[in-house]
């Protein structure tokens, strides 16, 4: 079963608290710094990273805070080295992470594939920018395919979280470390330039963690036990196939247990807008106005991009509705929306690539256009 995250409910509770005169624990932070501090709260033992805009605040913040906490910070010589430093620290059982932006994450794909093959937990933050190539430094959601399809070579998946506010980014970091440890795999937090750069009030606190399996596989020195080996090469006949089936079993479990999505106003909606991350914020702005205009429109916001909330979207498509997917790309998640709906309802797309950010008005216009179509 899926769990719905209701951030607005949490916020309202916080506001009630404020009204009742309790101390306001919020601090104003940009997404990059907030995610870094949250990783520290989550018990991240080591951070390895290489400078790239628009995530430089993470690296700078960690360079100051990790040593203060007696933990490890290394500025690596490349993203390739960073992800392999993560691999090394993770192999010894430490909680570890790296962060980068699109071109840097491309370089990390080798390491991510090895992490998946060696069944090692790690958290990778991608503060996406425009591409392909060097692209630009403006916000983008162009790496959805790369993140949700594995990204590197081989038959594997990564868990992908797509937060849409600085607070959710904070919450996702702690969740990401737990998920990585629980399923022994890399977890990607997929943010974008806006989320990384924008400031919002956040509450930084340690959430109750999950009960996690012990890391008896970790390389800690073969003291009083047989040697431990962390590997991803399986040459014997059938051995790699067995590993792949094992991973697949884990992935199926994740698809069953870990889907997170938020929805609003879907019950009576003629139009359902699907968006994640910063696009979902823009959509929410547009939907609020459209509702005031009397348009029956709701939204679904996937929080986990893999596992994808296919069931929730499919369920919403049981009644004939128009689905509009909005992304900061020329259409990537829309393919998952179409797969989920399997032709039951029409799916249309609106997006802008290359660092272009759709405005509330643009999305609103699109919604209005769809209303006319529906009447016809």
């Amino acid at each position, binding site marked *: 079963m899926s769990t719905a995250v209701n951030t607005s409910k949490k916020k309202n509770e916080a506001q009630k608290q404020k009204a009742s005169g309790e101390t306001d624990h919020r601090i104003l932070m940009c997404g990059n710094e907030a995610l870094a501090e949250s990783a520290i709260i989550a018990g991240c*033992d*080591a951070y*390895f990273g290489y400078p790239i805009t628009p995530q430089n605040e993470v690296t700078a913040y960690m360079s100051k805070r990790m040593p203060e906490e007696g933990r*490890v910070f*290394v500025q*690596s*010589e*490349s993203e*390739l*080295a*960073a992800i*392999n*430093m*993560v*691999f*090394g*620290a*993770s*192999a*010894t059982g*430490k909680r*570890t992470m790296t962060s980068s932006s699109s071109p840097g994450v491309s370089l990390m794909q*080798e*390491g991510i594939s*090895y992490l998946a093959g*060696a069944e090692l937990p790690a958290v990778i933050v991608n503060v996406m920018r425009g591409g392909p190539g060097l692209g630009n430094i403006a916000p983008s959601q162009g790496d959805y395919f790369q993140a949700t399809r594995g990204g590197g070579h081989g038959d594997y998946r990564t868990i992908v979280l797509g937060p849409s506010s600085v607070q959710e980014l904070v919450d996702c970091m702690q969740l990401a470390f737990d998920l990585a440890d629980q399923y022994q795999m890399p977890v990607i937090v997929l943010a974008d330039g806006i989320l990384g750069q924008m400031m919002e009030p956040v509450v930084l606190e340690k959430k109750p963690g999950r009960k996690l399996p012990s890391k008896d596989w970790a*390389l*800690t*020195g*073969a*003291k*009083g036990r047989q*040697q*431990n*080996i*962390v*590997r*991803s*090469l399986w040459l014997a006949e059938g051995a790699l196939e067995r590993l792949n089936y094992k991973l697949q079993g884990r992935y199926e479990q994740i698809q069953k247990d870990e889907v997170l999505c938020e929805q609003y106003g879907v019950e009576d909606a003629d139009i359902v807008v699907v968006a994640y991350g910063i696009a979902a914020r823009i959509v929410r702005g547009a939907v609020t106005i459209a509702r005031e205009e009397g348009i029956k429109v709701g939204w679904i916001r996937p929080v986990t991009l893999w596992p994808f909330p296919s069931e929730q979207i499919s369920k919403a498509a049981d009644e004939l509705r128009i689905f509009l997917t909005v992304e900061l790309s020329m259409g990537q998640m829309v393919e998952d929306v179409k797969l989920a709906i399997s032709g039951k309802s029409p799916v249309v797309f609106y997006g802008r690539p290359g660092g272009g950010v759709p405005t509330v008005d643009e999305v609103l216009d699109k919604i209005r256009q769809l209303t006319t179509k529906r009447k016809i």
Partner: protein
Amino acid sequence: MKTAFTRTPTYKDVPTHYCPGCGHGIAHRLLAETIDELDIHERTIGIAPVGCAVLEYDYIDVDMVEVAHGRAPAVATGMKRTNPDKIIFSYQGDGDLASIGAGEILHAGHRGEQITVIFINNAVYGMTGGQMAPTTMINQVTATTPKGRTSAGQGYPLQVSELLATLPGTIYIERCALSSPAEIRKTKKAIKHAFELQIEGSPGMSLVEVLSPCPTYWRMSPVDAMKWIGEEMVKVFPLGRLKG
């Protein structure tokens, strides 16, 4: 009867997959003996490369990890920084260390990572079928230099140890060879010293380059291969302590 030779405990009692006359078996034994003699079996973590020694963990009985091609020094950095009390070594071939992993070894040395590197130089890619390595000798015939390596076409053999010795972050670099019993004993001494430095917490990277025979892809008999190291390879890769 007096026992003249025993297997050192950290060297597993299994046949290896290496070709007849290959130097990896000797280098593995020297490594295992060092670990046992220094009594660090329980706190050593080894890193296997991509190359012929990829299955090193099948032979060396300590905690081990197998990593992407050339990335061992980065992995070692992640391990040592988070586990300063552990003894971390990487075991890398010439393709792994001097070609695809040139950046990683340079920067691990540059940062002065407190790790020990065993660099096996056999002047050729073994696992993939005898292609040219950065350390391949001039005129040496390989699968990808069918007419022999030329400096004009493929550049000169890369002397990585000399290069690394210029970095303030490296504390000990020695080039040894497996070409004779005497040289093998020197190699053992060097490997042991490199580990001792790490155990003492000396501030920087220690590296032992080992000129090692590959009779299969040198297209020689094992005996000729040993001779070739002593007569030809050492001209380009002179033996001795380069630093420390």
